[in-house]
């Protein structure tokens, strides 16, 4: 790499603009070329760690390109996922959807490479404001409201982050650099910045935006969304908050919370969304543990997670794309109609469940092992418990109730169901291959981690770990089949933390409509009776006084003025629009005169 450093976000943003003016025949070529270029750009940075793209702005030096081990592993997987996601959405005609997706990825990459809080904030907001279009483009009546909720929540998170960085700027005497924040001595700004980050990481109780938005996004939009927002937040936490102890219990709560709601969920994509919360919980706990092995584990799991979760959203997205349905109570028995989508989803399910030879096995175990190593036993055991839940839902419930189980498809759904277009299958094939490749050949991922020496010491495939994992997973499967009846999906929704702001919003409107409006009416009424009537009477008296006494005295001046006014009013055209036209005409004439002069 030469001194010329090109920001991959720039490639994506310019590419997105070029796409808008590209003729239809050439569009697919551009759609492939742009993310591939961004990926090659990231590849060219490997082995060239350093600080690039610095610019002076007012009193500050802004850093757009901090290239190191931590930023590279995230940039690598995100640009790779951008290629896969774009291939998956290659059939989408709406170029604005591609534009929104690419700008969203550009926002993520901007955060990953930035070296200071100002640039971070800029790209942080870019992510929220571009990804919301991936919800709105779904075009349903609910999409609009969901998008606004998503935006409001992220704006609130952004404001917390902004407040935190302003306070930090003041407290540190003008430091805007983004690095380890000093978790040993937390201030108010530390908590505020952390709150901004963990909102994007979907840590309960700040998580409800995630299933709300990802369940409603477009088919290919959800594939992008599931990869970028939460993992960018994990990156930001790993950069700034490694070793922040509170993150361990928060992460464990996330891991379990997602599992509980996944049992109740009837919508396949919302179930997957709850499992994002669960899986990001492992990463957040890893960051909280803070050891080199735990940070490696958090990064490795983010890497593996982006691929398998993308794959799962692609699999369930294909069902939605082809049948228009995503609820278990409206699907079932589809293996005959969509066998390939089933196979790909199963690979995603086995990967997320950490089955040996699949990607989750080599990444998730690193975090749990770090927990055990640091004698954080309760955290490690609870994470093991959550991993049983992961297999239960994503490895078993999702494939079983879509492709097997009771056939709940309507005649129309059944007729429409078939494997998705080739581009969608190709994207799923690439992601499936990578999920298995990472699971089988560990140096590919381990060499990329921020502490490769520590990673090289870790061997997931020892007999004990294999026996432990296989026992948990297979006996979970036994439990699943024994309790199958209990798990039968129900056509319900589950109330979550969004209840507070959805119903809170309604309470606000009710307050506005009922008590405030009626108080206003009462006040007006009271004013009418107590204020206005005496006032009218008083003014009538003064009018009489003026007319009969004063005017009489001052020789009918008032009457004279009124008559003059009447004449003037007659001279006027009398209507507002005539006056506006007249005025415009005058202005036009003045302009012409001025131009001529």
């Amino acid at each position, binding site marked *: 790499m030469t001194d010329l450093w090109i920001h991959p976000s720039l490639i994506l943003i310019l590419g997105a603009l070029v796409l808008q003016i590209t003729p239809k025949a050439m569009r697919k070529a551009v759609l492939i070329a742009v993310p591939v270029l961004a990926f090659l750009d990231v590849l060219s940075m490997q082995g060239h760690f350093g600080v690039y793209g610095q610019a002076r702005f007012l009193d500050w030096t802004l850093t757009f390109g901090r290239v190191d081990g931590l930023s590279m592993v995230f940039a690598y997987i995100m640009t790779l996922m951008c290629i896969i996601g774009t291939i998956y959405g290659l059939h989408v005609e709406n170029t604005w959807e591609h534009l929104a997706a690419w700008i969203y990825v550009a926002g993520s990459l901007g955060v990953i490479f930035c070296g200071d809080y100002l640039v971070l904030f800029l790209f942080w907001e870019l992510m929220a404001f571009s990804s919301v279009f991936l919800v709105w483009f779904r075009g349903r009546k609910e999409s609009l409201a969901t998008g606004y909720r998503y935006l409001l929540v992220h704006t609130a998170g952004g404001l917390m982050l902004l407040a935190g960085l302003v306070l930090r700027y003041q407290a540190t005497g003008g430091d805007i650099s983004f690095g380890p924040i000093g978790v040993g001595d937390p201030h108010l700004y530390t908590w505020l910045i952390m709150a901004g980050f963990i909102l994007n990481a979907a840590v309960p109780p700040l998580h409800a935006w995630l299933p709300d938005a990802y369940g409603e996004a477009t088919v290919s939009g959800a594939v992008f969304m599931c990869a970028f927002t939460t993992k960018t937040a994990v990156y930001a936490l790993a950069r700034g908050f490694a070793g922040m102890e509170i993150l361990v219990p928060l992460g464990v709560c996330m891991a379990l919370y997602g599992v509980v709601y996944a049992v109740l969920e009837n919508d396949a994509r919302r179930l997957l969304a709850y499992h994002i919360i669960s899986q990001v919980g492992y990463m957040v706990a890893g960051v909280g543990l803070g050891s080199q092995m735990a940070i490696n584990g958090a990064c490795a799991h983010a890497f593996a997670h982006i691929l398998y979760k993308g794959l799962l959203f692609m699999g369930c997205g294909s069902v939605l794309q082809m049948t228009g349905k995503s609820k278990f109570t409206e699907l079932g028995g589809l293996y005959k109609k969509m066998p390939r989508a089933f196979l790909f989803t199963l690979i995603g399910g086995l990967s997320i469940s950490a089955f040996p030879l699949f990607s989750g096995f080599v990444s998730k175990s690193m975090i749990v092992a770090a927990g055990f190593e640091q004698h954080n036993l309760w955290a490690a055991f609870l994470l093991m418990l959550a991993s049983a839940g992961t297999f239960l839902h994503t490895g078993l419930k999702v494939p079983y109730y879509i492709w097997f189980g009771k056939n709940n498809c309507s005649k129309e759904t059944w007729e429409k169901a078939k494997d998705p277009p080739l581009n969608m299958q190709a994207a799923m094939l690439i992601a499936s291959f990578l999920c298995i490749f990472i699971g089988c050949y560990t140096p590919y991922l381990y060499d990329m981690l921020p502490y490769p020496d520590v990673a090289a010491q870790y061997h997931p495939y020892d007999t004990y770990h294999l026996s432990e994992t296989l026992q948990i997973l297979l006996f979970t499967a036994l439990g699943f089949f024994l309790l199958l009846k209990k798990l039968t999906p129900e056509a*319900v929704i589950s109330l979550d933390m969004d209840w507070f702001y959805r119903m809170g919003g309604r309470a606000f409107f009710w307050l506005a409509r009922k008590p405030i409006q009626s108080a206003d009416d009462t006040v007006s009424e009271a004013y009418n009776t107590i204020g206005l009537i005496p006032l009218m009477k008083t003014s009538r008296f003064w009018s009489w006084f003026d007319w009969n006494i004063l005017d009489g005295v001052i020789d009918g001046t008032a009457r004279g003025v009124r008559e003059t006014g009447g004449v003037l009013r007659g001279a006027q055209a009398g209507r507002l629009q005539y006056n506006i036209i007249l005025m415009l005409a005058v202005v036009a004439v003045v302009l012409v005169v001025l131009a001529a002069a």
Partner: protein
Amino acid sequence: MIVKFIDFLRDRLTLVIRCCIGVLALLVLWDALFVSKEHAHTMVEHIPGFWSLFGFAACVIIIIGSKWYGHQGIMTREDYYDD
């Protein structure tokens, strides 16, 4: 091909179930007799088949616990927010 393979298995469902139970039994035996426990983190893990018990119990607790929680008013009608 995938469909044929699945149908092949479904036609022999009883046999498949028996094989699966056999695999589970073998797995516990393998753990009890051959797996070295030197990498175990705690004492309880030395119990033969500990993780089998853990996996099964975890699954049952998650299903029953979550469903119980859901039926406390968390699961509600689909048009709840439509009013």
